[in-house]
């Protein structure tokens, strides 16, 4: 353990988990927090609560900006518990020197997504930070706290999953990670793929209307593979099995990943949901979800099994087997 916090501990994989565990041990721990879902369920109030910070750099990328990302990300975390988003509170930190017009544009993106969903931004805080460096790039950070009403008798969660439940993925993976990564590492060479940043509450509404949804997660930092690993660890006594040929990856994302040595399964998505579904409801659910513009690519990619408990396993297109594990460190482009 180093004496200082390192960037790798923010990558969303194993090291982040360890850091969070250590933080919890300092007295924060409680059963609600320990559930480990994307939003907390406050039983007495029938409400889901979540908070997230957005630090994406650069703040503008093909397909959106940090404002849109903040709104969608928070909506999606609530949607993962089956909660309708109702109120947001935001905290904005902007570095001195950040272009004014860009900040207004970001606020506009955020508010557009909120108003499209009837979300009231009930509270907020704004801070300007003194600039740190002499470089040209200035930072802006947004934190959002979201509150939603859980529709249905209880919130969705991986503890409800049973053997044989199917795993549905709503579209192709890795777009957001590739979009931002291309800007960061691709320089002037690549046409940046577009982020899939999108709000998924409407899609979840359709899914829950059909019924049979046991759990949901949006695959953000750490990508699809990380969600599958976490599900395998938390689904009581079950393992996860997915089939590579069912997982769609677009050509641009694949090309970017090949060039960088990245794995599309670990690249962030910001508009994709993974659902654990009762098998008898799967077909109906797929039809319903495919009606949604964000769900047109919905497919069954795998299932929960009794074999290899606590392990997520990928069956490759060639009939080989690969165990998915938590990302042990930040992904950095390979050399040659």
């Amino acid at each position, binding site marked *: 353990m180093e004496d200082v916090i390192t960037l790798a501990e923010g990558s969303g994989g194993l090291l982040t988990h360890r850091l969070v565990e250590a933080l919890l041990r300092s007295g924060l721990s409680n059963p609600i927090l320990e559930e480990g879902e994307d939003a907390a369920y406050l039983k007495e109030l029938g409400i889901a609560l979540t908070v997230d910070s957005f630090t994406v750099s650069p703040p503008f990328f093909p397909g959106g900006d940090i404002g849109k990302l903040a709104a969608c990300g928070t909506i999606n975390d609530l949607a993962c518990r089956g909660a309708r988003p109702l109120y947001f509170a935001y905290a904005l930190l902007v570095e001195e020197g950040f272009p004014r017009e860009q900040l207004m544009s970001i606020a506009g993106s955020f508010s557009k997504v909120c108003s499209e969903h009837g979300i009231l931004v009930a509270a907020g805080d704004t801070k300007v930070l003194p600039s740190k460096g002499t470089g040209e790039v200035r930072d802006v950070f947004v934190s959002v706290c979201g509150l939603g009403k859980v529709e249905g008798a209880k919130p969705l969660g991986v503890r409800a999953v049973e053997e044989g439940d199917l795993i549905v993925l709503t579209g192709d993976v890795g777009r957001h990670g590739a979009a931002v990564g291309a800007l960061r590492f691709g320089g002037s060479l690549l046409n940046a793929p577009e982020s899939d940043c999108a709000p998924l509450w409407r899609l979840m509404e359709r899914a829950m209307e059909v019924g049979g949804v046991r759990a949901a997660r949006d695959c953000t930092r750490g990508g699809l593979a990380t969600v599958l690993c976490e599900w395998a660890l938390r689904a009581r006594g079950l393992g996860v099995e997915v089939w590579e040929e069912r997982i769609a990856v677009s050509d641009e994302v694949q090309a970017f990943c090949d060039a960088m*040595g990245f794995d599309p399964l670990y690249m962030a998505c910001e508009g994709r949901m993974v659902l654990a579904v009762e098998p008898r409801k799967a077909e109906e659910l797929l039809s319903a979800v495919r009606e949604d513009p964000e769900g047109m690519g919905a497919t069954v990619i795998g299932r929960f099994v009794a074999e290899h408990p606590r392990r997520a396993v990928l069956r490759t297109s*060639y009939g*080989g*087997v*690969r165990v998915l*594990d938590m990302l042990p460190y930040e992904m950095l482009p390979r*050399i*040659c």
Partner: protein
Amino acid sequence: MATDSKGFVERLVSRVGELARSLGRRVKVMEVCGTHTVAAFRGGLRGLLPDGVELISGPGCPVCVTAQEEVDLSIAFSRLGDLVVCTYGDMLKVPGSGGISLALARARGADVRVVGSTEEVLRMALREGKRFVFLGVGFETTAPATAWLAKEALKLGLSNLFICSLHKRVVPALEALLADPDLAIDGFILPGHVSVVLGLKAYRRLMEIKPVPMCVAGFDVPQMLSAIAVILRDLVRGSPSLSSVYRRAVGEEGNGLAQALLEEVFEPCDAPWRGFGRLPLSGLCLKGPYERLRAEPLLGDAVLGAGEEPMEGCLCGEVLKGKVRPTDCPLFGRACHPSSPVGPCMVSSEGSCAAHYRFGDGMGRWGVRA
């Protein structure tokens, strides 16, 4: 992936099986490229090979073969004031003597920046007044980009840009492997990207030293299986050949422009390799007018890390030569794993140990049947 590709792979698997049975003995095929190591694991290649065909990983991960003294050198630059160390990402976490890495140096305040290209380095050096040291790591694949940077630096008369060339040449390492009496590699899958630059011609003289089947492959399972089939066919016929199945990218002559750049800026020099020790003419050093760009003199009399001090128990060097499997190293999975690596083979995203750990072998360690 197209469904006809799956049929193609099935036929290849069957062909490889036939050839292995014809041959009637165990064979060891070495892939010499970190990207091949990863591609093999990602595609579950080992599970598709018959029992008698063993695929082992070689010294094709540039970060892994960077010698300890070179790692310590890189980290020493980060301690100099008013200086930016620019590096390709994969070097960031490699532990130097004493456990510090460039990542940790950065966390503690050193200006260490990850770059995706030498273009970025040039832009930053033009824009900022600090001194910039670029760590040139990689084989002949990335060396041309470093050569370009060197030329630009001279052309533009930059006085704040320096290059620490840690580039290595692949062919001398292959020579060393061929010359090793203990090694007994039956065939090589040659690196794809290096071959794009150097062309097949670069390997011809290896066939004169010790004729062993060698085949360049691209970076997916069908390509690697095709190369293995070619190697086995050569063994069955008793006529080793040098060939390529990576047709769309690799030719006999390679890339003339890249080779010219290398010729102009670098000359082969002796260099230290992890696992191999000092190999003659295996590194690339700045020459002639480009010598003044060398970063090493910036360190003056600064004391570097212990350098050759081997990390207690780490078998990275033996793994790189294909003599030891990662899983045979006593530290593997215990004291050494990706989030707390002892050696570079576990740190690098294309390191053999890292690949074994992350992807498992389909059975055994994970208890999962193929």
